[in-house]
C-alpha cells in the first residue's frame, strides 16, 4: 500500500516533533528512517499508524485519506502492523497468544491461526517458548515476540520501530534475512526505523534521513552514503571527516581539488563552482602506503574487530581525519597516506 505524507506537522507542547514532513513511499517499498535520538522517528510512525493525532498535513495510505482536515481513520481500520519500540507485549497472554491475537481479530479459523502463529514463532526462533509469559523472557526474546506479532498480522503496511535493537548480530542478520524474505514475498510496504546503518544499507530501497522533525534527504542507500546532500548527512551516515579544500576545476561531476597541498580528483555535485569547498573524506578513501603523499601522525586508535580505527593528524594542515588501519597503531606513530576518493559536499544542504 503506498504511503503519502504531505506536510505533516505534530507538536508536543511547544516542541515541534514533526515539521512539515512530506514523502511518497511506493507500494512494496522498503523504506528506512535514520536519525538521531529524539528526532521524531517514532512519532512519525505513530502518526501513520493513527496512534497520534496530527496537527496539520495529510496522511494517505493506498490513496485513501487516513488523516487530514476533518478526517481521521482510527488505527484499527488502517490495517497497519506495528512493532513498538518498547515492544508493548500483553503481559497476561502467552507468547503464542500474543502472536495469535491479530489473526484471531481478523477472524481466521482456529487451525489456520495456530498454523500461522507457529510459522511466525518458528521464523523468530521462539517456537520452544510459545507457552511462556512475556515476563519470563529475556529482552531479546521479548523483542522477537513483538516482531512475530507484527508479521503475523500480514498487514499491507508495516511499521517497525527498531525491531532488532536488542538482538545479537547473528540473530540480527538472520532476522534481517527473514525480514527481507518476508518483505519480498508479502509485497507489503515497510517503514523501518533503525540505528544500525549497516542494517539500513542492507535492507533499504530508500533511506530517509531525519533531523529535528524534518526529512533532510531521501535517497537510495549507496547514494546517501557516497553522495550526501549536506554536511549533516555526510556526518551522520557512516564515518567521515569534512575538510576545507579548494576546487580548481569542475567538469562532469568530477572536480580537481586542492587539499593539503595535493591536487586530488574527487566526485562533486553539478552545482559545484571553483573556489573554496567542503570535502568529505571517508576512512576508506585514505590508504596507508609507503609512498603516500600525506604525512601524518596517529593521535589515537581504537580496535574495532579486525581493524583499528585511527584518528590521524595530517601534518600539512593539522586537520584530524579518520582512517581504518589493518594493523595495530599506537598514538604518535607516523603514517603516510594517499587519498583515493572523496566527495564535495553541496554548499547549502537543505537544513
Amino acid at each position, binding site marked *: 500500500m503506498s504511503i503519502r505524507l504531505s506536510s505533516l506537522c505534530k507538536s508536543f507542547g511547544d516542541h515541534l516533533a514533526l515539521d512539515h514532513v512530506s514523502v511518497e513511499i511506493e507500494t512494496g517499498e522498503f523504506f528506512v528512517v535514520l536519525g538521531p535520538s529524539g528526532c521524531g522517528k517514532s512519532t512519525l510512525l505513530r502518526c501513520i499508524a493513527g496512534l497520534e493525532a496530527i496537527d496539520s498535513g495529510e496522511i494517505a495510505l493506498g490513496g485513501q485519506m487516513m488523516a487530514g482536515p476533518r478526517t481521521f481513520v*482510527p488505527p*484499527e481500520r488502517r490495517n497497519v502492523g506495528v512493532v513498538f519500540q518498547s515492544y508493548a507485549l500483553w503481559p497476561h497472554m502467552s507468547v503464542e497468544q500474543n502472536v495469535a491475537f491479530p489473526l484471531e*481479530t*481478523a477472524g481466521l479459523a482456529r487451525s489456520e491461526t495456530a498454523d500461522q502463529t507457529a510459522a511466525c514463532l518458528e521464523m523468530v526462533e521462539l517456537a520452544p517458548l510459545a507457552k511462556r509469559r512475556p515476563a519470563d523472557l529475556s529482552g531479546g526474546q521479548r523483542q522477537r515476540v513483538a516482531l512475530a506479532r507484527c508479521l503475523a498480522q500480514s498487514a499491507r503496511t508495516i511499521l517497525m520501530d527498531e525491531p532488532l535493537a536488542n538482538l545479537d548480530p547473528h540473530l540480527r542478520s538472520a532476522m534481517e534475512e527473514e525480514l527481507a524474505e518476508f518483505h519480498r514475498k508479502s509485497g507489503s510496504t515497510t517503514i523501518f526505523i533503525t540505528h544500525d546503518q549497516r542494517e539500513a544499507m542492507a535492507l533499504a530501497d530508500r533511506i530517509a534521513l531525519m533531523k529535528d522533525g524534518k526529512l533532510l534527504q531521501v535517497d537510495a542507500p549507496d547514494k546517501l552514503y557516497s553522495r550526501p546532500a549536506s554536511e549533516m548527512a555526510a556526518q551522520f551516515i557512516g564515518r567521515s571527516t569534512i575538510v576545507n579544500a579548494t576546487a580548481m576545476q569542475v567538469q562532469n561531476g568530477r572536480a580537481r581539488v586542492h587539499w593539503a597541498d595535493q591536487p586530488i580528483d574527487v566526485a562533486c555535485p553539478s552545482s559545484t563552482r571553483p573556489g573554496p569547498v567542503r570535502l568529505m573524506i571517508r576512512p576508506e578513501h585514505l590508504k596507508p602506503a609507503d609512498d603516500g603523499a600525506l604525512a601524518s601522525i596517529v593521535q589515537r586508535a581504537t580496535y574495532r574487530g579486525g581493524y583499528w580505527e585511527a584518528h590521524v593528524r595530517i601534518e600539512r594542515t593539522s586537520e584530524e581525519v579518520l582512517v581504518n588501519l589493518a594493523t595495530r597503531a599506537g598514538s604518535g606513530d607516523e603514517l603516510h597516506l594517499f587519498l583515493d576518493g572523496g566527495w564535495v559536499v553541496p554548499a547549502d544542504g537543505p537544513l
Partner: protein
Amino acid sequence: MRASFSAETVSLGLVVAGATLICGLPLLLLFKIGLTGTGGFTLTPLLEALNSRSVQQALWNSIESSTLSALCATVLGTALALIIGLTNVRAKGILVFLILLPMMIPPHVTAIAWIQALGPGSQVLQWFGIAPEIGSTHPLYSREGLVLLLTLQHSPLVFLLVRAALRSFPRELSDAARVCGSGASRMLWKITLPLLAPSLLAGFALSFVAALGNFGINAMLGIPARYTTLPVLVWRRLASFGPDVLPNVAVISVILAAVALLAILLQTGLQKRMRTALIGLPQDALALSLGKNRILIEALLWGFVAAVLVLPAASLLATALVKTYGLPLTWSTLTFENFAEVLWRQSVTVRAFANSSLIAGLAAIAIALVSLLLGYFLTHKRRNHRRAAAAAGAQAEIAFAVPGIVMSIAFILAFIRPLPIINVSLYGTLWIIFVAYVSCFLAIGLKPVTAAYLQIDGSLEEAAKVAGAGFGRRLRRIFAPMIAPAAASGAILVFLTAYNEITVSALLWSTGNETIGTTIFNYEDGGYTTLAAAMSTVVVLATICIMLAMNGLAQRAPAGTIPWRN
C-alpha cells in the same frame, strides 16, 4: 535468605500487630462469647444456629443478595469507569463528581429517599402522574429492589477502584491492540479488562463484603419484603433484649465472618493467577472517539446520574422543606424551619459535623497510610511476608463484613476498660469511634491500593534498591507517589463511608461525641423525619464543599489523586 530485623520486617510486624489489635482482638472477644459454653469452647451454638431454618434462610438471602448486587455493581461501576476513562465524553470531572455524590448520602437515607421517590406518596412521580396507586405494595420491597439499591450504593466503590487502575494503564498496550485491527470492544474484552482483572475482582469483593454487612438497605427494604438477611437477623436478635442477646449475635457474626473469609480466600486465589505487572509508562489516557454515539452515551450518562442522584436528592429536599412528613410540597407548605432548627437551634448538629469531619478525615488518612504499607506486603515477593500481611488483611475484611453495630459491641468489649500501660480509657471519647472506623473501613482503603501494587512493574522497585534506597525511602519516594491515586481513591471512599455511617458509631457515641450518622438516625428514630431530611441535605451540601475544597489540594498531589480532576 538472611532473616534480620530490618526496617522492613519491623514494619511488617507492626502493621500486622496493629491490625490484629484493632480488628482481630475485638472480633475475637465477640466470637468468644458465642463459642463458649459452660464447659469452655464449644461449637454447639454455631451448629445449632446453622441448623435453624431462619439462619439458613438469612444466610442464603445474604449470599444471594450480596453476590447479585456485587455483580451488578461491578458491571455498572466498571462500565462507568471505562466510558469516562477511555472515551471522549465531555465534562468528565463533573460526571465523576456526580457519580460519587450518592455515596455521600447515608445508606438508610438513600433507601428512604428511594422508597419515597418510587412510592405512592412520591412528589416527583405525582407530578408526572405515574405514582403507584395509594396503598399498593411498594415496588422496591422485593429482592430485586434490595439488589437494585445495593447496586447503586456500591457501584461508586467499583467505579473509583477501576478508574484508579485505568490511570496507571500503559497506553501502548491498548495501542498495540488497535493496530492489530481490533476495535474498541474487542480491545476492551481481550486486553483492557483482563489486565484490569485484579481491580475488577477487588471491586467485586469489596462490594460483596459491603453488601454482606450493609444494614441500612437490608433493613429498610429487606424487612418489608420479608427478605431477611444476616444483618437484619442480628438486629432482631438484639431486639430481644434478653441475656442471651450477645451469644446469639456473636454466633451469627461468626457465620458472617466465615462467609467473608471464604470470599477473601477466593479472591486472593484468583488474584494470584491474574497478577500481571504492567510494564510501560502510563501516558495520557485513551480518548476513543465515540463519533455520533457520543451524544447518546452522554445522554445515558447524564440520565443515569439524574436518576440515581436527582431522584433521591429531590425527595430528600422535598421532605426537608415541609413542616411535617406527608405534607405535599407547595408554596404554602414550604418552610425553612427545619434547616433553621438543625443549623441554629440544635447545637448537636454543628458538633456532629465537626466530629464526623475530624474522625472520618483522620481515619481516611490513617487508612491510606496503613494500606500503603500493608498493600506492599500483600504483594511482596517473599511468601512469608505475603502470608503475614494476608492474615492482617483478612482480619480487616471480616471487620468490614460484620455489621457495624456488631463491631461496636465488639469494641465495647475490647476497649471499655482503660488501655494497659498508658491507663487511658477510649470508651466514651471520640477516639474509640476513630479506632473503630479505622478497623471497620480498612478493607475499603486497602482494596484499591493492593490492586494498584499488583500492577506495578517490579523493576521499578529494583531500580530503587540498587540506587541504595532502603525500605522506608522506597516506600516514601517510589511507591507512595505511584500508589497515590489508588490510595486517594481508597481514602475518599473511606471518608465518604465513614462520614455518613450510622452503625459503627451506634453504640460508641456519647453526648458531645455525636456523629452525623447517629444524629440523623436519632432525628429519624425520634420521629423527626423532616429534621433528618434537612440534616441529610446539609450533609450532602457540606460534603460537596469538602470535595470541592480538595481541588485546591490537587495542585500539590501527584496526578490523578483527586479522581474528579484530570
